């Protein structure tokens, strides 16, 4: 029988050839990786370069836009607005701290009993917070003094009251004041504190004295009693 394997003109595939084929596959894979990496690097470089140019242009545009916005800022208008706002704020602040002395007088009128009269009155405004009053008061008895103090203490407007410098004259018990012809007299100084908030000024209308000299008369509170006029009537019981 003929040995067909040796006689054949077709080369036989042996294990060596298989090995070679697998080796050539490895080389091809490595080549592919190399080509792809190189190509990707080149493309990436180009892309990065152009993208860099793009963002540079964007940055330039942003800088130009920012400079344009900054140059459109009107500093004169800003100063005008700031100054007006400051002036308005200061005026508002002063308005909020405005107080009515007339209201203080009205409160004193309401809280002063008929048997007392004021010799003098001083009012001092302290730090936009409180009015310190010192009223030099005359009355006819200690009872009136105590009663007056109680009335002041009970007033809604008055924050605190203290009686200082109490002096008495003509109070001899053995001699009737009518017989002796002398009037009994107690004098003291009432130191009163009235918070600014308790006597706010409520605007009714504004008077402009100058330059037109037009005066619009207003009287926010009725002017009735006279604190400095001594009353002869005693109405402590009524109060």
């Amino acid at each position, binding site marked *: 029988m003929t040995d067909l394997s040796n006689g054949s003109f077709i080369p036989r595939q042996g294990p060596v050839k298989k090995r070679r084929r697998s080796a050539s596959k490895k080389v091809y894979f490595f080549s592919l990786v190399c080509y792809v990496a190189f190509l990707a690097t080149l493309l990436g470089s180009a892309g990065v370069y152009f993208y860099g140019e793009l963002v540079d242009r964007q940055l330039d545009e942003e800088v130009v836009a920012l400079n344009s916005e900054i140059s459109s800022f009107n500093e004169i208008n800003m100063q005008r607005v700031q100054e007006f706002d400051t002036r308005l704020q*200061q005026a508002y602040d*002063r308005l909020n701290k405005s107080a009515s002395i007339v209201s203080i007088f009205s409160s004193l009128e309401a809280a002063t009993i008929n048997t007392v009269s004021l010799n003098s009155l*001083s009012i001092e405004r302290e730090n936009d917070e409180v009015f310190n009053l010192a009223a030099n008061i005359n009355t006819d008895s200690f009872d009136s003094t105590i009663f007056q103090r109680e009335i002041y203490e009970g007033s809604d407007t008055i924050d605190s009251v203290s009686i200082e410098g109490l002096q008495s004259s003509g109070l001899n018990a053995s001699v009737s004041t009518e017989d002796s012809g002398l009037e009994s007299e107690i004098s003291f100084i009432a130191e009163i504190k009235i918070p600014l908030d308790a006597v706010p000024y409520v605007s009714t209308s504004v008077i402009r004295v100058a330059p037109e000299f037009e005066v619009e008369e207003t009287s926010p509170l009725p002017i009735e009693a006279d604190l400095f006029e001594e009353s002869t009537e005693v109405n402590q019981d009524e109060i």
Partner: protein
Amino acid sequence: MITKGLFIQILMLVTSVAIVITFIQPKFTEITEVQDNIATYQQKRTEVLSVNSKLASLTSRLEGVSSNDQRRLFDYLPDKVDSISVIRDLYLISNQAGVFYKDANFAGEDKTIEESENPFGNPVKHTFELSVEGNYNQIKKLLSLLESNNYPLEVHDLNIAKIEGGFLSANISLVTYAYGKSNNDKANRI
């Protein structure tokens, strides 16, 4: 032995790595920085835009304030207090109240008031002394008229005492204000 093809492939790989290290990576870093800068510029531009639009709105509101109201505000808090005008006003108010006007004078300007943290600053205090005589109702009317004036005439000190003939003498310390520059304004000037 390394074949020529393999050598070229290795060279390509090395070149690729070198390009990545020396060009692409630094460029990426640079692009990131530029992008950050763009974001910052955009943010600042938005802020400037916001300030500009706010300023435009405020300017429009300011121009919308009537001249009458502006005049009232400037009357209430003028740039400068004219002491002669104030004394003249005190005289006119005294006459209006019916009190006997004795004297009025300008006691001085107090620039030292409360250098506080108030960002709006403080108005400048101007003190005037007014001496009058009259009855109780007249003095009360005077005080009422002072309160109703078109600029502040705050009573900071008042002394009333009885005098002869049933009349009262009143010495009044009055304070009015001029606009004081705010701390911001001062800073801007500097």
